[in-house]
Structures are given as C-alpha cells and as structure tokens.
C-alpha cells in the first residue's frame, strides 16, 4: 500500500477506536501538524456522509418492502387490516 493509504488506514483506526495504543500518537500528531489534523477531520466527515448514504439506501430497501406489503395481492389481509385502522 502506498504511504498516503497507510496514513488513511491509521486515521481510520483512530476514528474507529481500533488501536487505542496508537490514539495518543495520533492526538499528538494532530496537535503539532495542522495539515494532518485537517485530514483527520475531513475523514471523520466522510464517515458521517457514508453513514447518511447507507441510511438512505436502507430507507429505499424499507420502502420497497413497504410497497410490496401494501400492494401485492398475497398480502391482501394485511392491507385490509391497515386500511381498517384508518377508516373514519
């Protein structure tokens, strides 16, 4: 792996708390090296965005299941049960 990827891996271990022994080293590097700190913070942002992306994909999967349950003939009794709940 090239050097920049090894650094990405080190930062990842830090963000995922996978190498507590190295955490202090990363903390110190962040204090003395603003560019490195910048990389850590942006990588953390990527983790958050990836989580949001995963969440949206999951939402899509849930919506597909929902559509099937609310429209497929084989779930007719389920659909009637739900419809009866909202019948005014």
């Amino acid at each position, binding site marked *: *792996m090239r050097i920049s*990827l090894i650094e990405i891996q080190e930062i990842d271990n830090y963000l995922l708390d996978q190498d507590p022994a190295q955490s202090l080293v990363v903390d110190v590097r962040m204090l003395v090296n603003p560019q490195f700190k910048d990389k850590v913070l942006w*990588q953390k942002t*990527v983790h958050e965005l990836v989580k949001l992306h*995963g*969440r949206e994909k999951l939402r899509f999967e849930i919506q597909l299941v929902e559509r099937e*349950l609310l429209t497929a003939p084989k779930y007719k009794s389920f659909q009637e049960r739900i419809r009866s709940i*909202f019948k005014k």
Partner: protein
Amino acid sequence: MLVLEQTVQEARKEKITEWYKDFFPVVAAYISRRGGEMEDARELFQEALIIFYEKNLAGDFHPEVSAEAYLMGIVKKLWLKQQQNKQRIISFENIEISEEFELKPAVKKVLSFLRQSGEKCMDLLQSFYYEKLSMEQVAGRFGYKSERSATVQKFKCLEKVRDQVKQKSLSYEDFLD
C-alpha cells in the same frame, strides 16, 4: 461469494418484512388514535425501523426489552418530536433521536454529488462502515478476489471521497455548521 451476498441482502429483506408485518399495525393504530394519517404512520415507521436497525447493528438493542416495546418507544419519541416540531435532541428512556435525520440542503447536495461522481465507492464504503459487513463480505459483494484487494480499494475510496468532500464543501458555506 455470490451466495454469501444474497444471504446478507435477503436476510435483511426478510427481517424488514417481519418487522413490518408484526409491528406496523400496532404503530398505525397508535398514530390513528392520535389523529394521525396513514402517511404519518408510514413516515414515522420508516424512521423508527432505520433507528432500530442501527441500534441492532451497534449492539445497543438489549433483548431484555421486547423488539415491539423498543420500536414503540422510538415511534412515540418521533411522534412527540413531530408534534412539538423541535429541532434538538430529545432523550427518553435512554433512546436518543438526533436531528441528523433531517438533512441540511448543503449535505444533501454534497451527498448527491458523491453518488453521481462515484456511487460504487460510496456503496463500498457504506457496506463496511454502515452495514458493518466483514471485508470478506465486501470483497464478495464488489467482486474483489481477496479481502486484501477490497481493503486497499476501501482506503483508495476513502482518500478519493475525502478529497472530493473537502473540495465540494468550499462551495457550500453551511456544510460544516
């Protein structure tokens, strides 16, 4: 590898279907009794399932509470939140629901850009960081010959996305607020 991947996705679909069939009628009745509509119930239940799924992945769901009681706790919280229209974190019965579920426009734009410019990378990253698949499963899903190749690709994707996010966020002032 292909069988492994089908199992992961099919198992999730089965689980979601099971949760829907078992718990949605209870949630629908709860929302209906409080004057809510079908649309409210659907939206809240989707959000609740996402939270429930994430709690399961994180190991935060404790079996001493039934799945139904836990899901209903989340739904009640979301319903209250919707009614009170609060934008801050509400804590109730140790279940925290944060405002991160409501995406800021700038975050939506950056996410949309990342999907358009490299959906495969975003999908690969989310399979590890969000779905918590092992690198063996990630390799199988994305057709890499080994965990090692998939791991290297994961770090290449992280580097690429990190650079893109940094660059793109300069265009959106409120991205980091």
